[in-house]
């Protein structure tokens, strides 16, 4: 017992066990591969989708169009949400005006916006972007707001008594002061935005990973559905890892200041 396995070894063992049991269950015939495609089938299907157009495009082209929509909605949420949150943290009046509306909006699931998103912005790029936006917006606002509230009021006053305009206070004091909190919020926003996007694609668009899933379902191809799910999960994971890197870098840089 003295030799302890490193953590990654446990994670790897867990994954191998999980996929092994899964593969075993299907290969042995205990579970029909039509109900649950095996991991190997999924890998095979993935390879095929990457080389043969499905639902009008190759798998990575679908992924790229999903990712483009995601970035559009996510960046829009950040660009509007972060300044709004900072201003709410700075001005009590704005906070009082926005909070009740915001609290109500927060509890409406992003998918509930799909009909209006399609109605207002169409099913091309505008509608899906709006759905991601509604998913990603709240954490951008909330974390920027919390971060701004935590900025030492003396720093704001120091900026003011040295002639800073409101714009400079926001850009040079509130934004950097709230940055660790903002970046943490962006990570949450990205996760929610990515989830909302797939939901939206299931309903409206005619390309993207969500669309691949819908098509897989209507073609009675569970391995296609499962492949799309794997791609969604992996991409979400990669987005999160990327933002986590940024987050820890910001934290390290801000540490002890």
């Amino acid at each position, binding site marked *: 017992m003295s030799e302890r396995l490193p953590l990654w070894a446990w994670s790897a063992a867990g994954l191998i066990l999980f996929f092994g049991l899964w593969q075993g269950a299907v290969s042995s015939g205990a579970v029909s591969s039509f109900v649950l495609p095996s991991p190997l089938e999924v890998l095979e299907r993935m390879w095929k989708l990457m080389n043969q157009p499905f639902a009008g495009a190759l798998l990575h082209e679908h992924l790229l169009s999903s990712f483009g929509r995601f970035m559009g909605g996510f960046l829009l949420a950040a660009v509007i949400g972060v300044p709004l949150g900072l201003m709410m943290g700075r001005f009590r009046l704005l906070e009082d005006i926005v909070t009740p509306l915001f609290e109500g909006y927060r509890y409406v699931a992003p998918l509930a916006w799909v009909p209006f998103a399609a109605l207002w912005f169409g099913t091309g790029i505008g509608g899906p972007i709006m759905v991601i936006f509604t998913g990603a917006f709240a954490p951008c606002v909330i974390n920027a707001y919390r971060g701004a509230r935590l900025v030492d009021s003396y720093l704001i006053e*120091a900026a003011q*008594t*040295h002639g800073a305009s409101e714009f400079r206070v926001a850009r*040079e004091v509130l934004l950097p*002061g709230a940055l660790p909190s903002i970046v943490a919020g962006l990570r949450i926003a990205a996760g929610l935005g990515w989830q909302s996007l797939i939901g939206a694609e299931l309903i409206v668009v005619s390309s993207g990973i969500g669309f691949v899933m819908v098509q897989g379902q209507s073609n009675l191809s569970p391995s296609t559905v499962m492949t799309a799910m794997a791609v969604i999960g992996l991409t979400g994971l990669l987005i999160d890892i990327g933002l986590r890197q940024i987050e820890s870098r910001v934290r390290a840089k*801000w540490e002890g*200041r």
Partner: protein
Amino acid sequence: MSEIVIDNVGKVFGEGGGRPFLAIDGVDLRVEDREVISVVGPSGCGKTTLMRMVAGLEHPTSGEVRVGGKRVTGPGPDRAVVFQQFALFPWKTVRENITFGMRSRGATKAERDAAVAHYLTLMKMEGTEDKYPHQLSGGMQQRVAIARSYATDPGVLLMDEPFGALDAQTRTIMQEELVRLTNDNPRTVMFITHSVEEAVYLADRVVVMARNPGRIREIIDVATTRKAEKWSEEPIDDVMEMPSFTHLRGQVWRLLREQMGSDI
């Protein structure tokens, strides 16, 4: 001209919600252009509140403050504040901190570079321009905060116990530096301190405050004595042993000590 006129100013905290508290009551004070005044008084007598009203960070509930003939309605770079907490921007370098106020008034890069070099040399901090505040000692941080306010070139400099956090040695250096800075480049200064020695050493006049409610107890003239006794030509330690100095210090002390139950 940057004279400060505090005209029958009162300040009540917690009006409209909570129990109203009279922090400042009927304060009248005129600080002449380029005059240095220090403010002493027991803690809670409203020194910070008075200074914040001059800075425009707090609004009088009665009376008004005028600086250079204009009524104060908010903060501005004509009244730079050196805060007790230093309040340096942690994510900005020494250079960026010092030039923060200069950028507000549109100073060129050349002017800013010159100012950074000037103040860092003056404060014996050469080579620190690209360091961040957390990499500096408390004394150095305070010097940067003072340089930031000086470089802003305000008509009025407001300082709230700026040397309070420093060890005795650094404090002495900073006091001498402040005297030199105000000699080289005179401006109106309002300097709050807990230290009677510091108050007498630095100021043209010492304003002694009393509390409950916060008000001015007495104003003691120092400038006449300083000029007559040529304090500025002596090192600080020698000045503080001169009879002219100890006499004034005793006078301020008595005014403070007679305030019952005060914790100075």
